[in-house]
């Protein structure tokens, strides 16, 4: 049991952060607007959660301008993908235990 809890990653312990990672696991990248619409989050909310995932090294952020409008693209890093998989496995094990 202790072992499983160890793999529950605090960095993913929020609906929005979980959502960002879920989307980035199955897509090469997602831009800010797409994520916002998929997750139903506000600008500030999404930005701060993305920032914390970026700090943990789970996200790569790419900012650029498309016809003068800022466009932010998010990619999951390999570390982020691996950690997310471990997190999901731990969640599944916990469900089976109970």
């Amino acid at each position, binding site marked *: 049991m202790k072992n499983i809890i160890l793999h529950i990653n605090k960095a993913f312990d929020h609906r929005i952060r*979980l959502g960002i990672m879920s989307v980035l696991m199955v897509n090469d990248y997602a831009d800010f607007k797409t994520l916002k619409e998929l997750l139903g989050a506000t600008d500030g909310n999404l930005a701060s959660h993305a920032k914390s995932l970026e700090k943990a090294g789970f996200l790569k952020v790419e900012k650029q301008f498309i016809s003068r409008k800022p466009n932010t693209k998010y990619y999951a890093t390999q570390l982020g993908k691996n950690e997310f998989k471990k997190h999901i496995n731990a969640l599944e094990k916990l469900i089976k235990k109970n």
Partner: protein
Amino acid sequence: MNSENYLKNISEIKNLMSKSSKFISLSGLSGILAGIYALIGAGFAYWLVKNSDRDYLILDGRVFRYIVLDMLLVLIFSISTAIFLTTKKAKKNNEKIWDALTKRLLLSFIIPLLAGGTYIIIILVNQHYGQTGALMLIFYGLALLNASKYTLGDVKYLGYTQIILGLISALFPGYGFWFWVAGFGFMHIIYGTIMYIKYDRK
């Protein structure tokens, strides 16, 4: 957090993964209608050739121009029906009709189709008529297969079916027309009906 919460997390993860990577509002009914248009178009082409001086088709001449027009009409009707019904269904599902996902879906569908279409035109100009039906089926099947990763799984099987029909058709050069009718007509109706029953009728 208790296990109910974890369960909710997992189902939300699954939901987001499929919502962000698969377009599910493809209309089954538009598949059925496309099949019916193809059958009507093929029936008209058959009638044209049977009533012309020759029993077979050559590139120059009036009959061929009518058949090209006939096929273009089938194509235009099928595409506009698909756009209309899919837009309607997407609105009902609260899914976006034009975003990064549908762009990817369309692009992965169109590229094999354009490559195939261009190739068919090139060999027609070089007066190789025999394999046109087979090539259309094969390239259409490849386009469906390529696009299927962004949409409902049934599209993949329709793709396999068209490729197989195309290859068999290539073995029987004189029967290209009938394989075309089977692939673009009947298979569209069959798969469209399956998709209609599975997804549309809710």
